[in-house]
């Protein structure tokens, strides 16, 4: 079968598998996701097939960028008819092109898995021919792995937006997770930097995934409640849910815009995760998007803010307030929770022996785990400063904000004009990012 894209770029179909692997891993590395957790509990104890999943994912290696290697993350092909300016695989890019056959991907996945290199496969692809054809090829690999090899490891498929609903349903049958990247924080930026992508099409597909996932979940729950008889018919659809990725720093959107978008994605589509990917230099960049060093600290702060939204009961307006003095950006020097606390000193000090969990969660330096442990502990004894120390809470950080049975903060500390300065070591105040 000839590939449309082979018309555009010289393409050697006799390429060795090991060379294809180089090209198609290079093409896939800008996707931040590597999660392999939270799917159905499966194993191969009945002696057929291979693999297990469910529970915590495992990182089988780490690359020198500190990233976890959990899945074989590759593209089926890096030929692409789209022209997304930020992407190394866009049509106009002069990178080398390659395409795996379906069987090659299956083989690599199984052989890597057997050696305990990976938890499973994360497969994505450039758009070849058209959306449906590409989606079909991606699904086919998952189907082969599941049905011919009885593969019970983790499969994450990147869904092609605008592929037909039937194809999405098929993909959901075999995959643990499906994802569609929003790519840009706003529809305008997407139009500008990825003219072939449609903001509307992306949202439509996300909505389809959401209802597919919800339907399968409801079915499973119902099955449990009906009886203890095993019912064979089983609707399967991406048990580990959907996720998405946004590129940070390619367009002009500020952090507030990014967080508003994330918040909507969590609320409207029940995303498990929104990944933030600092716009990274790529070989052979486009003139439409001049290269910069990736804003890694900004990316880190966005992840922290994202956690505050999801697990600490914060609102976007609290983290990035809408007022004339704010530029809508997170403070790069201090984390967003601390930054909120410094601007809301009237909220503190919080008495650890009396306050509710919600309030304790607002104290900078106290994570969700410690907060729960404090609540648990104080049913039996009063909380003292030393208890926090023993829980390995950063005392210097929490001190201005708390009260315990043996400690009351000096009012001076909270009233300090330069409370922010108290937290930033002098050499850090000049941050390069």
């Amino acid at each position: 079968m000839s590939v449309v894209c082979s018309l555009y770029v010289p393409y050697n179909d006799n390429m060795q598998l090991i060379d294809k692997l180089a090209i198609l891993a290079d093409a896939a590395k800008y996707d931040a996701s590597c999660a392999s957790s939270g799917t159905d509990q499966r194993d191969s104890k009945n002696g057929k097939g291979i693999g297990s999943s469910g529970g915590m994912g495992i990182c089988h290696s780490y690359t020198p960028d500190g990233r976890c290697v959990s899945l074989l993350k590759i593209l089926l092909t890096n030929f692409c008819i789209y022209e997304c300016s930020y992407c190394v695989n866009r049509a106009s890019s002069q990178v080398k092109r390659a395409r795996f056959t379906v069987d090659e991907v299956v083989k690599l996945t199984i052989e890597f898995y057997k050696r305990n290199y990976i938890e499973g496969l994360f497969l994505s692809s450039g758009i070849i021919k058209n959306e449906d054809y590409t989606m079909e090829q991606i699904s086919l690999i998952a189907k082969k792995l599941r049905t011919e090899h009885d593969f019970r490891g983790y499969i994450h498929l990147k869904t092609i937006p605008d592929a037909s609903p039937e194809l999405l349903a098929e993909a959901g049958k075999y995959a643990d997770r499906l994802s569609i990247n929003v790519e840009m924080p706003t529809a305008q930026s997407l139009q500008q930097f990825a003219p072939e992508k449609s903001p509307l099409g992306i949202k439509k597909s996300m909505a389809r995934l959401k209802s597919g996932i919800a339907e399968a979940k409801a079915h499973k729950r119902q099955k449990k409640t009906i009886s203890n008889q095993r019912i064979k018919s089983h609707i399967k659809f991406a048990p580990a849910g959907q996720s998405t990725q946004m590129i940070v720093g390619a367009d002009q959107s500020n952090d507030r815009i990014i967080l508003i978008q994330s918040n909507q994605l969590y609320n409207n589509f029940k995303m498990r995760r929104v990944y933030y990917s600092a716009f990274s230099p790529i070989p052979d960049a486009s003139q439409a998007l001049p290269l910069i060093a990736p804003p890694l600290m900004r990316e880190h702060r966005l992840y922290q803010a994202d956690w505050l939204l999801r697990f600490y009961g914060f609102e976007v307006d609290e983290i990035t307030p809408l007022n004339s003095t704010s530029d809508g950006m997170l403070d790069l020097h201090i984390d967003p929770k601390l930054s909120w606390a410094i601007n809301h000193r009237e909220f503190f000090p919080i008495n650890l022996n009396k306050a509710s969990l919600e309030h304790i969660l607002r104290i900078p330096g106290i994570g969700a785990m410690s907060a729960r442990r404090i609540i648990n502990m104080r049913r039996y004894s009063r909380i003292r400063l030393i208890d926090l120390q023993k829980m390995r809470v950063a005392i210097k950080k929490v001190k201005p904000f708390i009260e315990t049975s043996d400690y009351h903060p000096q009012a001076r500390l909270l009233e300090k004009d330069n409370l922010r300065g108290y937290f930033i070591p002098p050499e850090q105040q000049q941050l390069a990012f």
Partner: protein
Amino acid sequence: MTGMAEKQLTVQQDFKRWREMARTYLQNAVIPADARWDLGDQLALPFSFEQPKSAAKTNKHQVPAAFIQVAQFLSQHRDHSKWTLLYQMLWRLTHGEPYLLRLSSDPAVRQLHRMNKAVSRDIHKMKAFVRFNSSSHSGEEHFHAWFEPEHLVLEAVAEFFVKRFTAMNWTVCTPGGCAHWNQKQLRLSEGITYAVYQQMTEDDEMNEYWRQYYRHIFNPARLKEAAMKSEMPKKYWKYLPESVLIPKLTQKATLNMTHMLSQPATDPERLRAKSKKLKQQQNAIRSKNQKQAQ
């Protein structure tokens, strides 16, 4: 289900022994300071006790189920002090402090958590960093792996692998013991040295593919060596075929990134100008999108 293990696993055996001894100590009101556990490899009571007189006495001591669980888990720790710690806690649980486990700042509880955390981490890292090497013996594929766990976690990890790699023949060896799986039964045998292990294995050609993948999934623009080393400390590198690449990838990263940043950018119209077909295709999609947006 075919027998997972043909013999009682040793860590579980140790725990059972400890439990029996602890029960006897407790029934005879031996205070923690007097209880002795450090009797060589075999746990044995230093002196004999009378059998408890009545059933009521046996049932007097109730402990939370959670304690049995954490205690069992802790028996995988290598340090012998675990038995003393467990008995101290058992004593307190049965002498007026039934809520002991909830006192996160109590020194004994903290010690227990610390030790159990070390065990969990060891299990987790072993599941992650064991690498199976394939070799063929008379037509049948067999996978070998070598690992040096800090604690007595071989059995726990082997059971995990039994569920994951059920349809494979494999052997995981450590200095303290080997676990063998033949698709039906898990068998434990004496430990071996690394030199002996090396004679059992051959280089697996897939390692070259894995190294190729590792080399290319790394983004040199995001170099964070310290983050990698904290998750994957050097002591694990010897198990990982990819680790030989790390020094070079790290060294060349900055250079590669500077090079990338200095390259001239490409005209986005480059291909559209050359290929009418691509231009048509892209234009069709773009105009469809524009219509949709209106």
